[in-house]
C-alpha cells in the first residue's frame, strides 16, 4: 500500500525567528512560514502547490527536500521517514529526491562544463563509472533535448530554456524517484515555458517520476498537476483533483485567486466575474486568529475569527479548510471561443 505513495508530508511546521535577541534585546519575532502542512503524493503523479508570495510554498519545497530542517513534523519518502536521516542514508535520500530551481543560471556552477555538471554527481553516487560516463551523460542530454555535442560547453553559452534543461538533466542524472520543482518555468518566456512543461510531462511518463510542482502561475499548475494544493499564509486551504479545484473551487481564496487570472480572451473583458480582494496578505509574524484568510474574506463571520476551520472533506469530494465553502461552480480560464 505504502508503495503507491512516493512522498508524504506529515504536519510540517517551520517557524523562523527574526529580529534581535539576547541582552537588552527586544522579544524575537516568529515567522510562521509553514504551519502544519500535510500532503500525500501518489507514485507517478504530480502535486501542484499554488499560492501567492509569502504563502510558504518555497519554504515547503526546501522542507521536503531537507534543505532546511522542519521545526516539527516529518517527511516520508518511499515509506521511509527521512526527517532525521544522516550520513549514508541521507545521501541515498538526496539521490532519490531531487530539486529543480526557478533560476537555472544561478543554480549551475559557471566554471563547470555541462559534462561535469551532469556527470560528476552520477560518478560520485556510483551510478556510472569513468569509461561510460560520457556516453551516459550524452544520452541524458539527448533525452532532455540538448545537443549531445555541447558536452564541453559552459552554462553561459546556453539560453534560459536550455539552462533549465541542463538543470533537469542534472536532477535526472541521479535516477530520482521524486522531483520537487520550485517555480521551474516562471523565469522563462511563454514559448519556452511550454517546451519545458512538455519535457517534464514526457519524462514523467517515460521514467515514472513523481513531481511536487510549485508555482504561482495558476494555468501552468492546472496543466501539469493531477492534484492541486492551494496555500495561504503557511497553511493549505484547499486540496483536491486539479479538475475539481479549478472548475469548482470550494475555498473563497481559491475562487478569488482563479478569478484574478487575466484571461487571454478580449471578449470576456469586463464581464464582472472578477472577485476583488481588498488589502494585503497579513504578516506571517502575527497571522489572524481562526481562519487566516478571514481578514480579506467577504464571507467572514465571528466564527471565522474564533475557530480555525480544519482541512476536511466536504460532501462534493473537495478537501477544504473553510466554515462556509463555495457552492456555485464557476467557469474560469476557458480558452477563447
Amino acid at each position, binding site marked *: 500500500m505504502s508503495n503507491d505513495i512516493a512522498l508524504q508530508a506529515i504536519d510540517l511546521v517551520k517557524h523562523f525567528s527574526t529580529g534581535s535577541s539576547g*541582552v*537588552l*534585546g*527586544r522579544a524575537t519575532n516568529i515567522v510562521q512560514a509553514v504551519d502544519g502542512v500535510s500532503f500525500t503524493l501518489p507514485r507517478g503523479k504530480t502535486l501542484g502547490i499554488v499560492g501567492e508570495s509569502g504563502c510558504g510554498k518555497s519554504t515547503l519545497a526546501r522542507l521536503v527536500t531537507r534543505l532546511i530542517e522542519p521545526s516539527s513534523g516529518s517527511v516520508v519518502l518511499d515509506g521511509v521517514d527521512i526527517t532525521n536521516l544522516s550520513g549514508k542514508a541521507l545521501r541515498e535520500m538526496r539521490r532519490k529526491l531531487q530539486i529543480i530551481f526557478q533560476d537555472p543560471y544561478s543554480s549551475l556552477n559557471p566554471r563547470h562544463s555541462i559534462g561535469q555538471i551532469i556527470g560528476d554527481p552520477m560518478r560520485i553516487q556510483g551510478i556510472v563509472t569513468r569509461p561510460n560516463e560520457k556516453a551516459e551523460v550524452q544520452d541524458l542530454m539527448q533525452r532532455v533535448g540538448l545537443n549531445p555535442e555541447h558536452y564541453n560547453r559552459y552554462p553561459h553559452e546556453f539560453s534560459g530554456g536550455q539552462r533549465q534543461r541542463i538543470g533537469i538533466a542534472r536532477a535526472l542524472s541521479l535516477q530520482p524517484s521524486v522531483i520537487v520543482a520550485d517555480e521551474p518555468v516562471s523565469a522563462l518566456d511563454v514559448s519556452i515555458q511550454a517546451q519545458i512543461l512538455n519535457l517534464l510531462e514526457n519524462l514523467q511518463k517515460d521514467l515514472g517520476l513523481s513531481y511536487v510542482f510549485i508555482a504561482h502561475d495558476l494555468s501552468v499548475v492546472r496543466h501539469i498537476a493531477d492534484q492541486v494544493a492551494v496555500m495561504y499564509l503557511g497553511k493549505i486551504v484547499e486540496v483536491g483533483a486539479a479538475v475539481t479545484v479549478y472548475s469548482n473551487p470550494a475555498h473563497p481564496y481559491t475562487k478569488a485567486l482563479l478569478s484574478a487570472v487575466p484571461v487571454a480572451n478580449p471578449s470576456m473583458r469586463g464581464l464582472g466575474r472578477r472577485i476583488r480582494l481588498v488589502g494585503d496578505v497579513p504578516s506571517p509574524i502575527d497571522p489572524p486568529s481562526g481562519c487566516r484568510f478571514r481578514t480579506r474574506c467577504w464571507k467572514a463571520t465571528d466564527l471565522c475569527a474564533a475557530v480555525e476551520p480544519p482541512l476536511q472533506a466536504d460532501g462534493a469530494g473537495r478537501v477544504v479548510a473553510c466554515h462556509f465553502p463555495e457552492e456555485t461552480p464557476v467557469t474560469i480560464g476557458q480558452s477563447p471561443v
Partner: protein
Amino acid sequence: MFLFIVRRIFFAMVLLLAVSFFTYMLFAMLPSDPAALTCGKNCKPDVIAANRIRLGYDKSLLEQYWLFLKGIFAGRDYGTGAAAFSCGAPSLGYSFGQHECVTTLIAQTFPVTAYLSIGAFMLWMLIGISTGAIAALNKGKWQDRAASIFTSIGVSLPTFYIGLLVLFSVVIWLRILPFPSYESPFDDFPVFLRTMILPWLVLAVLSAASYTRLTRNGMLEAMNEDFVRLGVAKGLTRRIILRRYVMRQALVPIVTIAGLDFAGLLGGAIITESVFSLPGMGKMSIRAVVESDLPVLVGTTMVAAVFIVIANVLVDIAYGYLDPRVRVK
C-alpha cells in the same frame, strides 16, 4: 532607535573590557621581566626586587590586571614612603622606560597624532570622493583611466616607500621644504604647517585611492538602479539626481568605512609618524616595542581600541540615519 543606541553602547563597554583583559594578559605573558628593564645597566638583584614590588609586578597576573583596571577609574599609587608617587585617574600604568605615567605620555603624543589624522582624513575624503565622482561621471574616458591608474598606485605602494621618496625629493633634493621638525600649532603655526604638509599629503593621497574606487563603483552601481531611472523619468535635473539619488546611495558604504579608517588612524599612524619624525602616539608605540616598555604598549593599544569601538558605535548610528531601512522597520 534609542534602545538600539543604548544596546550598542552597552555592548561596546563589554567589548572594551574584554580587549583590556586580553591586551594586558598578552603583554604580561611576554618572556621579558618588566622589573629587570627598569634600571638598565646598573641593575642589581635588590634594585630589581625593590622595583618589582614598587610597580606591583610581584602580585599575581589577575591581581595586576585588577590594579590596572582600578587605576583607570581611580588613579594609582606606586611604592611607599619617600619613593612613593602616583599616577592620577585615568591611569594606564607607569612607564619605567621613560619614567613617566603612561597617561601623561599619551596626553603629550596624542595631539600630534590627532592633527595628522584629522588633516589627512579631510584631505583624503576630498581627494577620494571627488576623483571617484569624476571617474564615474566620465566612465571609460581618460579621466576614468587616470583615476584607475591612481587607484592602482595608491593601493599597491607602501607608505614608507612613498614617504621616504617624497621626503628625499622635496626636502633633501629640491629643498622646497625644510627638514620636518614638529612644533605645536599654538607655538609656531608656520613651522607646524611646513612640517605637517608632507605627511598629510602622503597619507591622504595613498589612502584616497581606495575611496576613489569605492565612490566610482558605488556611483556607477547607483546609476544603474531603477530608482535613478525613475528620477530621470520624473524630469529631475542631473544635479538633483546625482545628489539625492546617486550620491546618497554611494555614500552609505563610504561613511561606514571612513569611520573605521579614521579611528584606526587615531590609534597611531605608526609608519607615517616614523618616516616624518612626528612625535605622535605611533612613534611612541614603536619606541615602546623596541624597549619592551609594556605599560606604554598596553596604554596605546587601549586608546586605539577605544577609538575603534567608539567609531563602530558611531558608524552604526550613522548607518541608521543614512538608511531608513535600518532605522524604521
